[in-house]
């Protein structure tokens, strides 16, 4: 735990240092609309304090969600919404083209991260995963889940292969196969219990829906078979849903 604090404080320091970083070159555009509004912050709720006119060259300093921090020639800095920058012009006279991730980027994604919540054999489960796409249809996923039940908790780590049926469609079903390990910790209020780790295999199916920008909704069902040291294997059914984002 202490090491975590160290890493986090180092990260914070690094971020602070880069935020206060050296002078750099910024992208410039010329205003094509009659004027654009500069807000004091990245949101509609922050007041407009300055207006820049058509023809002025503005520098794009940084971006947060759909808002851009700009600097006008007279030195004022403020936040402009993407919709107002769409009609500005690049130095070449071309319309400033701001590529927003869309359905094509979704189909061509390489990495994806997500979190889900659901039911794991009657217990609450929180799961996170990282996925890498090998082909548009085929991807590999690593899952870490934690389920918290009435009598026992368990941690799962699995590796999965996923086949997506229609990778270029907004909504597509998928199938998955996987294997991994599960560690079960019986609750401390039960008498004479020990933790146990078993290997498991799983088969599953689900549905993915591209929402917008970088976000995907995902819901799935997985049937696990736990290879216990007892005489019979244990079957666990899992339902869950969540949101992921891709790069």
């Amino acid at each position, binding site marked *: 735990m202490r090491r975590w604090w160290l890493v986090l404080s180092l990260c*914070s320091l690094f*971020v602070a240092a880069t935020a206060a970083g050296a002078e750099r070159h910024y992208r410039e555009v010329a205003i094509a609309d009659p004027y654009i509004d500069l807000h004091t912050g990245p949101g*509609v709720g922050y007041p407009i304090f300055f207006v820049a006119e058509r023809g002025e060259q503005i520098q794009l300093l940084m971006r947060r969600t*759909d808002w851009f921090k700009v600097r006008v020639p007279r030195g004022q800095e403020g936040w402009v919404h993407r919709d107002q920058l769409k009609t500005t012009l690049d130095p070449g006279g071309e319309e400033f083209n701001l590529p927003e991730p869309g359905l094509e980027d979704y189909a061509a994604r390489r990495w994806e991260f997500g979190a889900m919540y659901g039911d794991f054999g009657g217990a*609450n489960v*929180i799961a996170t995963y990282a996925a890498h796409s090998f082909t548009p249809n085929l991807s590999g996923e690593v899952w870490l889940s934690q389920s918290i039940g009435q009598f026992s908790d368990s941690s799962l780590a699995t590796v999965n292969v996923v086949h997506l049926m229609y990778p270029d469609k907004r909504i597509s079903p998928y199938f998955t196969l996987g294997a991994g390990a599960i560690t079960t910790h019986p609750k401390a209020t039960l008498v004479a219990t020990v933790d146990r780790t078993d290997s498991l295999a799983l088969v599953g199916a689900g549905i993915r829906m591209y929402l917008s920008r970088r976000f995907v909704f995902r819901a799935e069902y997985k049937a696990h078979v736990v290879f216990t040291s007892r005489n019979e294997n244990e079957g666990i059914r899992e339902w869950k849903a969540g949101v992921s984002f891709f790069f």
Partner: protein
Amino acid sequence: MEGRSVVLLLTLALGVSVLSGCGRDRLVRTDDSQPPVIEPDVERREITVPKIKKSDFEVGIFAGELSVEDFGVNTVSGATLAYHLSEKFFLQLDAGRTTAGLTSFERLSGAAQLLTDAEREYSYYNVQVGYDILPGEGFFGKKRALNMATYLIGGVGKTKFAGDDRFTLNLGLGIRLMPLDWLAIHADVGDQIFDIDLLGKAKTAHNIGAHVGVTFFF
């Protein structure tokens, strides 16, 4: 008539000279042993469009007081990582820890201990979704205005307390003050709700906390 033949002859002569000129040119060009007469001296310009820095992530630390139901009010500290999905919505991961105190029973009875020291460790992590309400400016005195926003936050997580992991529901309300574009100061209150049967009877415990934190956008 005569004029026209002269024109024709001249055209012919011009054509022949041009063709032979081209031919000689072709001969010269095929002669590789000679260096080219004119060295091209134009450097290709590399045009790089500067990238626009994104700053949708927010990382930080917090400290505060957490009331662990039946176990007193204790100092809690932790860290947060948030990703701003849109102007209004953000996802947040946070983790924290505290050490629970004594119940009033333990304090009054003197020797009896319900939990070992290790079991008194209270640690948690949460996955939450936040929604900014009431964005605007707040004024310090007459001249200084700070960007701020009030947000609602809620989610699920895991709390380890009294030797067990407990599924936890979180609800909270916070204020984000932004003195600089990359720096924010948070103040928030939240409730961590889980089921516990430690004191003989199963019940839902509400653990209410108040925190102050500092975060950096990157």
